């Protein structure tokens, strides 16, 4: 019974532990939704609108229905008899939106009919055989023109295509009505200003492009009135709730499963019409059905991100003190509001304080419908847009004042001593040390030499610039008061017979590595080998409750729930152990977990093995007083606040004078996400975020023509970064723990995305400054840059 020779288990939190999810993935043995096969399964295909706006004059599915192997073909009107309008998750008014359009189409790619057939090739053939005729309506494409007199409108009851109109926040605004009541501070700040910077900028529309397209398998069992739905989703519990509502079932009649999911980036939060349609068609046909999106459908029918125009003004003193910032925001949300559509741009408005102690900040937000794919969350979801506007404007101010951009930022930072810091928009930043992050970044980049290098390159005639951006973001969402679905997370921890541990989490990772980080935490908590721990997720039949993975919340909220449940299970286990060690009069409070044993602190000779205590808990003879048998506990964690990670990114960009092609030479990223469980995984998250932010800055843009036809509907026309487009990133971290959860972890999933876009654009503008350029919109298209260089050259603007 002594542990004298037992090897001590190393602590794992903070270590670069290799991921436990990898073996199945690197061997090709993981099960994504398209890998599922059920007996008798049918395949769905959707016929989609090929015009942007029109009334369905005639639709005929009879030819499709008559094809051999076709089980069912339904128009939107027919499906609407079984499925009502889809729910959304925001409090804003929204027009009706059906899974399959009933009488009118509002964007290219909107489904108009659905077929179920014996295989996917047949289903596609049948969808193609459906006949549809439209009376075309004028397409609404430009968000400003959408609000003009005489513009066509998309939805009855939404005059001038306005979904959310004149929604204000910040200084002098009544938070209840979202309307300004007092302009005096704003007026005074602008009156006092020595300098005013004003710029209109577009944060362009992007396609999230998870490499796995969406997909769903639905099986409705009529005998038991039970729906099982597998979906490539970030949040199976939300899917369960909404699918149950749409099908007229209770949550007890629905099991939602997110199998292996090939990336989400926000676009797999929304619950889509295809998911509801699959469930309905399984019920109607009596067979399991599968639908797998192809890439072109993903460009058309999976939500887009961003697409906000920001008109930003900064008022400042000549010494660089920022007095006020105001912004007019216009979001082009596409044709409908889906789950979080209308909410995302409000986050942009909330972030307009950036990392600065700006005393007067206000935004006014308008959201308009256009004949485009609906928008929703995309990595960062509203925060990258806000920080882009702030960081571009601050950079312009530095240039205007001829100040070093690092110095200007330092002068305006919220000081470390002032946290928690209430912003003008009503957020409370939890913790921060922005100067430390700046100093770390300046040292890592060797800022002064970097600038000297730029100057030397310029002297050789090269077009080179350096740029910097700072960010803060809202993560770890969040208190239930701010998250429409509820902001808590749930976890269960069971210590099994034999001493193995099974934990469940309502977080639903799809690449974030929580099977590893959560196991690291439990291994340390119980002092057992990591191989003895299973982390289960993504199945509402296994995980009792949950919200899901988005907004960089799985560690900060899901991890905190896990540790609450682990604490409860561990406490109970110690009581069983104390009963077993009654001879030694051990009190549960004196017991500790150590390397597979439970022992008296400071007296390791008094101990029992973890497995022995676990076995006793399930056959407790005699049952210790006051205890129930078993070791299975659960917990909900409700955070008291969001978390606010931050960081500083620095980059160097060169632009080819002859072709206009930009090249990112260096990117230095300092990120502070609080305490870190696994640095290897955190680095991976930052790398991936950087690539997406750089993608927005340099390459990516969803483009529509004037008829609302998408010009970017495949990987041939929508450019994402490839390996050779990117440099090796240089990462550093500072650590400022958050006080809002016991782990001190803030979340890191979105960080890299937010800082990198403005950082790269700031560097590009620095490169182009000698040509008189103040601003250039993303993406940094070679053609756009070439014109800026050569138009100036012709005008004698050559440096």
């Amino acid at each position, binding site marked *: 019974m002594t542990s004298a020779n037992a090897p001590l288990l190393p602590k794992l939190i903070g270590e670069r532990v*290799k*991921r436990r*999810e*990898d*073996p199945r*993935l*690197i*061997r*090709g*043995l*993981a*099960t*994504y939704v*398209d*890998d599922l*096969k059920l007996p008798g399964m049918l395949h769905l295909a959707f016929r989609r609108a090929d015009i942007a706006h029109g009334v369905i004059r005639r639709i005929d599915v009879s030819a499709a229905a008559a094809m*051999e*192997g076709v089980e069912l073909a339904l128009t939107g009107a027919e499906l609407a008899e079984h499925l009502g309008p889809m729910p959304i998750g925001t409090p804003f008014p929204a027009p009706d939106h059906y899974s399959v359009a009933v009488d009118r189409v509002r964007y290219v790619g909107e489904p108009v009919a659905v077929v179920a057939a014996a295989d996917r*090739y*047949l289903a596609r*053939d049948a969808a193609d055989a459906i006949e549809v005729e439209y009376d075309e309506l004028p397409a609404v494409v430009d968000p400003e023109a959408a609000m003009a007199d005489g513009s066509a409108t998309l939805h009855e009851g939404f005059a001038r295509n306005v979904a959310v109109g004149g929604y204000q926040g910040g200084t002098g605004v009544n938070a209840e009505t979202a309307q300004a009541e007092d302009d005096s501070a704003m007026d005074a700040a602008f009156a006092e200003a020595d300098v005013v910077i004003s710029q209109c900028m577009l944060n362009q529309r992007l396609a999230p*492009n*998870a*490499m*796995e*397209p969406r997909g769903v398998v639905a099986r409705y069992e009529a005998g038991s009135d039970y729906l099982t739905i597998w979906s490539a989703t970030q949040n199976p519990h939300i899917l369960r709730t909404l699918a149950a509502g749409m099908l007229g079932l209770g949550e007890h009649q629905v099991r939602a499963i997110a199998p*292996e*999911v*090939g*990336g989400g*980036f926000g676009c797999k939060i929304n619950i889509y019409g295809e998911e509801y349609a699959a469930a309905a068609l399984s019920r109607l046909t009596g067979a399991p059905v599968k639908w797998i999106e*192809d*890439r*072109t459908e993903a460009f058309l029918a999976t939500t887009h991100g961003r697409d906000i125009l920001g008109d930003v003004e900064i008022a400042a003193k000549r010494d660089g003190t920022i007095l006020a910032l105001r912004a007019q925001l216009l979001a082009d949300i596409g044709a409908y509001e889906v789950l979080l559509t209308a909410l995302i741009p409000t986050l942009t408005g909330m972030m307009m304080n950036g990392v600065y102690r700006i005393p007067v900040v206000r935004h006014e937000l308008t959201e308009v419908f256009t004949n485009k794919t609906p928008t929703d969350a995309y990595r960062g979801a509203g925060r990258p847009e806000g920080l882009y506007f702030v960081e571009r404007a601050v950079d312009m101010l530095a240039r205007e004042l001829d100040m070093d951009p690092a110095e200007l930022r330092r002068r305006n930072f919220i000081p470390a001593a002032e946290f928690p810091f209430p912003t003008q928009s009503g957020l409370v930043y939890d913790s921060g040390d922005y100067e430390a992050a700046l100093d770390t970044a300046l040292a890592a980049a060797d800022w002064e030499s970097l600038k000297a290098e730029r100057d030397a390159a310029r002297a050789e005639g090269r077009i080179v610039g350096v740029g910097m951006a700072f960010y803060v973001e809202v993560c770890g969402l969040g208190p239930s008061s701010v998250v429409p679905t509820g902001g808590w997370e749930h976890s269960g921890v069971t210590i099994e017979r034999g001493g193995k541990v099974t934990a469940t989490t309502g977080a639903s990772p*799809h*690449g*974030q*590595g929580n099977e590893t980080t959560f196991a690291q935490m439990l291994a340390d908590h119980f002092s057992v080998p990591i191989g003895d721990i299973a982390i289960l997720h993504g199945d509402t039949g296994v995980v009792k409750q949950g919200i899901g993975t988005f907004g960089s919340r799985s560690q900060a909220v899901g991890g905190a729930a896990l540790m609450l449940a682990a604490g409860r299970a561990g406490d109970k286990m110690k009581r069983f152990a104390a009963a077993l060690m009654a001879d030694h009069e051990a009190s549960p409070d004196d017991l500790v977990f150590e390397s597979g044993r439970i022992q008296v602190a400071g007296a390791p000779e008094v101990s029992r093995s973890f497995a022995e205590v676990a076995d006793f808990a399930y056959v407790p003879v005699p049952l210790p007083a006051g205890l129930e048998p078993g070791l299975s506990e659960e917990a909900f964690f409700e955070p008291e606040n969001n978390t606010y990670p931050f960081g500083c990114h620095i980059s160097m960009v060169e632009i080819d004078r002859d072709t206009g092609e930009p090249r990112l030479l260096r990117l230095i990223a300092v990120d502070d996400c609080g305490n870190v469980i696994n640095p*290897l*995984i955190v*680095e*991976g*998250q930052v*790398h*991936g*975020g*950087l*690539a997406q932010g750089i993608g927005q800055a340099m390459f990516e843009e969803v483009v529509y023509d004037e008829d609302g036809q998408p010009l970017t509907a*495949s*990987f*041939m026309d929508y450019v*994402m*970064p*490839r*390996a*050779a487009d*990117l440099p*090796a*990133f240089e990462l550093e971290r500072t650590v400022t723990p958050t006080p809002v959860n016991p782990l001190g972890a803030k979340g890191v999933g979105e960080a*890299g995305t937010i800082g990198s876009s403005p950082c790269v654009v700031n560097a590009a503008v620095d490169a182009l400054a000698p040509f008189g350029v103040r601003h250039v919109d993303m993406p940094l298209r070679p053609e756009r840059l070439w014109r800026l260089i050569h138009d100036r050259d012709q005008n004698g603007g050559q440096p």
Partner: protein
Amino acid sequence: MSETVPITVRVNGRERTAAVAPRLLLVHFLRESLNLTGTHVGCDTSQCGACTVLLDGRSVKSCTVFAVQADGEEVQTIEGLAAGDDLHPLQDGFWEEHGLQCGYCTPGMIMSALNLLRENPSPDDARIREGISGNICRCTGYQHIVNAIRNAAERMAPA
């Protein structure tokens, strides 16, 4: 749709015969007919590389090859890479260096890297980045993938 063509393909060392529709894509033959679902589909336009397999030792995008074109040929997929429980050095490299997150691009990425290392057993980082430029990863930013391939190249180098 009733017309089928008989084909014989050696897949991961095992001979498979089947009667397939002429328009059946190789990737669907592997995934649907043979249940080898490690090869993924990420696009319809041979841009993403998620479907990369080796056809007679050379990497191809199996979404752009008909199954009938593989008749009489040898196909290697991700499932055929490990020898029993012994991972291939590229698999070890990806695991060791955290070369994957969601894992969806990974099989194709590994098969492309295999092709690269056969042509150039000790590529520098620029060559590695070039060599996997037919494959898109949306999760990793590629840096850990580059590390993974370098790691594998070192393991595979003759001692």
